[in-house]
Structure formats: C-alpha cells, structure tokens
C-alpha cells in the first residue's frame, strides 16, 4: 500500500498540488467577488483527487487548509486551520470516487432529477424542524415530529421538491454521479466537522479557557446556532457543486490528460 501512496506523488503531482491550492484560493475569492452564497473553495482539492488519487487529494486538502490560514494577511482565515482534517477527507473521498470513474461517466437525467428532489426535500425537512424547535422544562431542545411537520408545511415541501427536481435537471444534467458523490462527501464533511465546530463555536459559558472558542463564537455570526445549521446545510450543496464543476472540467480536457 505504501507503494501505491508513493506512486501518486510523481513529479507531475508535486507540480499540480501548488497549482490546485492556488485554484482553491482564486476561485474561493472569485465567489466572494460575485457575492454568491457558497464557498467553492475546494475545487482544486477535488481536482487533484479526481486526477491523481485519494492520497494526493488528501495531501492537497490538508496543505491547503493549513496554508490558507497563514497566507493572506496573516490569520484572517485562521478558522480554516482546525478543520484541516475535513479538507483532507474531502480530497480523499474525491480520489476514491475518482477511481470509480465518477468524474468521467455520464449519468441518466432522471438520476439528477431524483438527487435534486431528495436533497431539497431533506433540506426543507431540517430547516423546518430547526425553526420549530422548542425547549422543554428541563432545558432540552426538542424537535417536532416529522408527521406534524409535513402536514404543517405541506405546500412548502411540495414546492421545494419540485424546485429541487428542476435544479437537479438543469444544474446536474448528466453529471448526476458526480453530483451525488459530492453530496455524500459534503454530508460526511459536515458530520466530521461538527465536533470541532462544537468545540470552536460552542460550549462557551464563560469559563474562558479558549481564545478560539471566544473569537470564533463572536466573529462567526450573529446567531451561533444558525451558523452551525447553515454549515451542515451549505456543505453538501457546496461539495455537490464542486464535484460537478470538476466533472465538467474533466469532460473538457483532452484525452491524454486523463492517462496518468
């Protein structure tokens, strides 16, 4: 297995990684200029995973996170640093899916439609559940039952399912496999970043042991809880888009580039 890992790090790969990290940052900033509500800061990482393999993808993700933290005026993006392992997993999964040809195959359109519909349905479900949470006497947060949610927001659910289906159709088109892989990766990313986010964003009740906790809690957002929710919602979508873009890119490359 060590041989497989070493094989991925050829000269071409070592040259590709800095370029991929630079792509991460350039596109991440482009998205800010265009004022779009997404990050799209992992396209380089996913690209390396797709083109080379899981270990190179993981290395790219890890290095990108660590370097992003120190690159621009120092420490402005320092919050990326504790999440470096998430970026590594994204690169790893991109490589895993890449080896299965996810970035090269075309999927049937109905799959894309299905993915879009299911994703937006799930999204709506979580948002409505979150918005309707309540605190009972002992201080625990309780969430309403699914049945109650559906009946209360029936129209809303139907609309979002249709919208999701349409988005799946137009956005994913034939890149359904890539989109699905991205969704799965994004979901995994959201899950494994939750513990760190909890330590970093939450758990502050004044015992004051951790600067990071304090700073991120305040700098992160107005309402901390919704930031957490937003993270777990935007991540799958963001990664789905990133995987899609990489699928498009690979489709536009001349054949000999894929023969690595």
């Amino acid at each position, binding site marked *: 297995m060590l041989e497989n890992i070493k094989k991925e790090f050829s000269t071409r790969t070592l040259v590709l990684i800095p370029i991929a990290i630079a792509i991460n940052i350039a596109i991440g900033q482009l998205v800010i200029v265009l004022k779009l509500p997404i990050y799209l800061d992992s396209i380089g990482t996913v690209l390396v995973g797709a083109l080379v393999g899981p270990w190179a993808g993981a290395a790219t993700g890890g290095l990108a996170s660590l370097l992003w933290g120190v690159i621009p005026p120092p420490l402005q993006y320092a919050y990326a640093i504790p999440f470096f392992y998430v970026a590594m997993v994204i690169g790893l999964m991109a490589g895993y899916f890449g080896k299965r040809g996810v970035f090269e195959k075309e999927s049937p359109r109905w799959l894309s439609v299905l993915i879009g519909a299911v994703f937006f349905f799930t999204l709506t479900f979580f948002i409505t559940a979150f918005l309707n949470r309540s605190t009972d006497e002992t201080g625990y947060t309780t969430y309403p039952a699914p049945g109650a949610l559906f009946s209360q927001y029936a129209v809303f659910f139907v609309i979002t399912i249709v919208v999701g289906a349409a988005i799946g159709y137009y956005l994913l088109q034939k890149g359904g496999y890539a989109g699905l892989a991205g969704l799965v990766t994004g979901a995994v990313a959201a899950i494994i970043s939750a513990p760190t986010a909890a330590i970093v964003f939450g758990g502050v009740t004044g015992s004051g042991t951790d600067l990071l906790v304090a700073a991120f809690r305040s700098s992160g957002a107005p309402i901390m809880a919704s930031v957490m929710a937003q993270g777990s919602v935007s991540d799958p979508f963001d990664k789905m888009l990133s995987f899609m873009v990489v699928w498009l890119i690979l489709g536009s490359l001349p054949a*000999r580039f894929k*023969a690595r």
Partner: protein
Amino acid sequence: MAIVNLQNVTYKYPLTDSPALQNINLQVNEGEFVAVIGPNGAGKSTLCYTIAGFVPHFFKGAITGTVEVAGNESSKSSLHEWVLNVGLAFQNPFNQISGAKYTVYEEIAFGLENIGVPRDEMITRVEDALKLTGISDLADRSPYSLSGGQQQRVALTSILVMQPKVLVLDEPTSQMDPIGTREVFGVIRTMAEKGMTVILVEHKVEWIAQFADRVIALHEGQILLEGKPQEVLTSDLLREKDFGISRYTSTARKAQEMGLWKKDILPVTLDEAVEGFAPTTSTGSVHRLLSPEGRGKK
C-alpha cells in the same frame, strides 16, 4: 564525431493513432548548430523531447529505433541521468521558473542542489553561468518580477549551469517581444560560438540563416529536407509544403520570375536580398523598401 545519433526512430504518443515521428535518422556533430523548422504538428517538439529523453521516459508511448547522446543510449538510461547530458528549454519562460526559489541566484542553483553538487562548486558554477549569459545584475531579483526576455535568459542560464553536452531549444523566442528575442538569440549565439552543440527549433528563419550550420526541415513526423541553410530555406519543396519562408525569399522569387533577380540562389536575410538587388536599384532604396521600418516610406 556524432554526439547526437538518432537511428530509425519512430514514436507514437499514448492514445494516438498516427506516429509523431517516423523513421528519423539524424546525426549531429559536436559543436554543430542545427536548426529545425517545420509547420505546426510536424513533430518538432516531439523531436526535442526525444533528444532530451522525455520521450519516452516522461510521456510513455511506443518508441522504436535508437537514440544516442554522447555514447549513451536513451532506452538504457533513466530520465534523471539523461538530463545531465541534454539541456532542454522551451517557449514559455514562466513555466520554466521552478517557483521554489525567491531569487534568480537561488533559482539557477536549484538544479545543482538537486543533483548534489557541493556548495563551493555550486557557487562557482552559478557565478560563471551568470556572467556567461550576462544576467549578473538580475541575481537578487525575484524570478517572477522579470520581463519575458529576462525570464527566458534565467531559464537558459539554469539549464546551462548544469553543463549539458547538448542544448535543445524548442522555440525559445516565440513568446518574446523583439527585445526579448534579441536577448535570447544573443545568449544562444554566445553558446554556439563557445562550441556548444545546439539544436534549435525556430520560425525566425532569417536569424537561422545567419548562424546555423545546418537546417533540418521536418514535415508530418519525417525529415523532408536537410542541408545548408541557404539550400534548405530557399527550396521550392518548402514552399509546396507550406512552410513559413522568409519574405525576402518570396519577394525575390517573384522578382526572379519577372527577370529582376539575377542570382541563382534566392536570399533569406535582408542583407542577402539587398546585396542581390543591388545592381538593379540603389542599395539605400531597396533597403528601405524591404526592411520593416522602411515600409510605407518613399
């Protein structure tokens, strides 16, 4: 003594149907300055890569025939050994900057660090190389702050410092402005005059005509023509096969048809054209007519 010896070399890139090089037989003697011309897709870059060892070691693919440089066979060597004998520079100067070093001085030493040259020798070689190519004043600059011509000279210096036996240059001036072109040609000429074996792929035929010992015309992966610059560059065969030939040649050819060009051999450079036209008109007016700066003026 042939320092570069290609025998019956045929090569196909992976995933392609037609060979990029077919039956190439090429010998280059030590100290010779050989120019290679040809239309796009003729296989010029592939030829460069083959001599420099990147075909087949870097590109994989199917190769037959033998490639020998300085007595070593390419198939029996590895790429990292081969690059010590053959230096390669190409069009895009930006891509030849490693990115791993902050100053030109260190950038040039980069190759020597990789091959394990001791520090004292490294310093001597870098200083000599800087003087040779005339870029000592750029030593402390960041490679990324330089102009295209300067970067290309840094790239050449970085290769020359490795002391290769053969220098292969793939269109080094294609992306240069006139000043950069002049700077780069200056370095190449210096190396050629010092006795370096140079293989240069170029489009600017006027310059080749002045300095090359031999010209090879490549077409669709095969050697179409080979010989002295004067013969090859003015040959009718080139015109038929759609090579870029000197405008002086085409002008003189038309003049020849009109009976105005008296010499047997067609010109390639401006000076040759002026000399050939001299009996017909005054030298000054022809010079003005033919030179780029003079066009449009009376």
